[in-house]
């Protein structure tokens, strides 16, 4: 008798919050399909309470993460690249299905994403040297400006580039010591949700990266208005949403990175790296 074809084990995709993999507190999911409309998985449909929990986790992680040495953060980001490299095939398949790309094009996206982690990892102990300064004030004072992480950053990941784009908006935020709550591409959340599994095994402390899937229209307004979020990257918002979210972000004067047309395959430059830094200037007299 012919042996029955083995049935695949599907993965239940979950959120990644505080280093754990919860379902949405709302109990809701939404259907994720490939570019042809075939069912791929059910993704959690995050609620405002999930956003709230993610912000709490990110705030809790901020002190520790921002307090680690730059060298250590660089190593951890590099570790993410190492872990990702080992799961290249999985992400290639997810990106191909989600974005409707050929296997080779999807693989190129994943490779670029791995390389992007490496690129940003190297920035950890250099950014202070390009963003800081020793200031020659006209008086007997030592005066130094250093960049510091802004705090908890909400990120609306790009809608189209579900993985390379995602990595390109997370890595620059966390490498400088911020913690992040990221809302994935609405349509293609699966690579992002899988990234949580990579982060969980890469020495990234729980809560540094928190990944939510769901609707911009439902979750983003709560992130933009949240008084304990310090900054927001609107990469994944359209023009109309962006304007509305900027209004909400003014409630506690979040630093806002507005959406702009971006080629995610190009070398990113330092804009995103510098957008979520505060400059602290310290004075001290010089005298005996």
């Amino acid at each position, binding site marked *: 008798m012919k042996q029955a074809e083995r049935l695949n084990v599907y993965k239940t995709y979950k959120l990644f919050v505080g280093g754990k993999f919860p379902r949405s507190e709302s109990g809701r999911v939404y259907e994720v399909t490939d570019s042809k409309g075939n069912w791929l998985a059910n993704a959690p449909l995050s609620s405002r309470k999930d956003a709230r929990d993610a912000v709490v986790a990110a705030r809790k992680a901020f002190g520790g993460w921002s307090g680690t040495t730059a060298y250590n953060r660089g190593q951890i980001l590099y570790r993410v690249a190492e872990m990702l490299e080992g799961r290249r095939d999985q992400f290639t398949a997810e990106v191909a299905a989600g974005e409707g790309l050929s296997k080779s094009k999807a693989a190129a996206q994943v490779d670029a994403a791995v390389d992007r982690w490496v690129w940003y990892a190297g920035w950890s102990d250099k950014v202070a040297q390009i963003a800081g300064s020793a200031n020659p004030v006209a*008086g*007997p*004072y030592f005066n130094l400006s250093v960049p510091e992480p802004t705090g908890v950053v909400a990120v609306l990941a790009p809608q189209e580039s579900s993985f390379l784009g995602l990595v390109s908006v997370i890595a620059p935020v966390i490498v400088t010591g911020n913690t992040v709550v990221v809302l994935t591409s609405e349509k293609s959340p699966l690579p992002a949700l899988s990234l949580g599994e990579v982060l969980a095994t890469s020495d990234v402390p729980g809560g540094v990266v928190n990944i939510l899937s769901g609707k911009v229209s439902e979750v983003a307004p709560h992130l933009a208005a949240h008084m304990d979020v310090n900054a927001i990257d609107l990469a994944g918002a359209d023009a109309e949403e962006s304007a509305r979210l900027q209004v909400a972000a003014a409630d506690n004067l979040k630093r806002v990175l507005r959406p702009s047309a971006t080629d995610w395959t190009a070398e990113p430059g330092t804009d995103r790296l510098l957008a979520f830094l505060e400059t602290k200037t310290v004075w001290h*007299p*010089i*005298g*005996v």
Partner: protein
Amino acid sequence: MPTVPAYSSGAAVRLAEMADVTGSDSALRRFLHGLPGVDAVGIEARAATLGTRSIKTTAKAYAIDLAISMIDLTTLEGADTPGKVRALCAKGISPDPTDATTPKVAAICVYPDMVPVAKAALGASGIKVASVATAFPSGRAGMPVKLADTAEAVAAGADEIDMVIDRGAFLSGRYLEVFEEIKAVKAACHREPGPDGTGGPAHLKVIFETGELSTYDNVRRASWLAMLAGADFIKTSTGKVAVNATPPVTLLMLEAVRDFHATTGVQVGVKPAGGIRTTKDAIKYLVMVNETLGDRWLSADWFRFGASSLLNDLLMQRHKLSTGRYSGPDYVTVD
């Protein structure tokens, strides 16, 4: 706590109450090193700001006369002679022969061997005779020599002794040695009052040579050390080294005097010396006294200028205020 002058017997009682900090070398060191630090830039900025006070018209007239009355008119040269000292005394008694309203100076400051000359020249003018002592200006001599130096000046009738501390001992951390030295000199200042009640102990001014102590922290420590040992005045400088009195150093000593008074109730005087040549400078010092210690210190009993050329500048400014014209060096006397 009522205020007692440093030279009174009451002060000795108050100092005895502080004996726990001066009882041993280690206790004294712990105490001095436990004093609050001094931020150099901060104290210099404060002194500079006080230096921008604009003292005009009636306030200036008051300040000029006050400054004249606080001068320890000084000659401390190898070339000093009785004639030079007598001339200086005459100038001190009558700084401006053309204007009898001009106040007298506070004291004439000389070397010990010139004390008898000065004493005789000043007579009953009320001007004090101050003598430097203790191997001035370096202080590099053995204790017997320093005490003999002091005793000679006291015996000759000096009203005030300006001693120098052993900066070498201070800088090498032998604080108790410096403390004992000051106490010994203070003892040597003792003199029984005459039958008319005058001529009691000579008042002791302790010179730190702040230019050699080099740091503000050292100046604060030296100030406390000297006051604990019984100094009646603390004085910045000998006038014989590169860096003499500066406004921030003097301000720091005024603050130390203020804090010492708050702690013990003992009132100690301050004397900046060396490098104060102009009315403008002198007024800056008076402003510092006024805003740090207040009225109670604004008299020759508690603040002095160790100076020589300052007097003529004050006199010229005094002319300007009274006549409205600028004066010139030919209109003040050169002694």
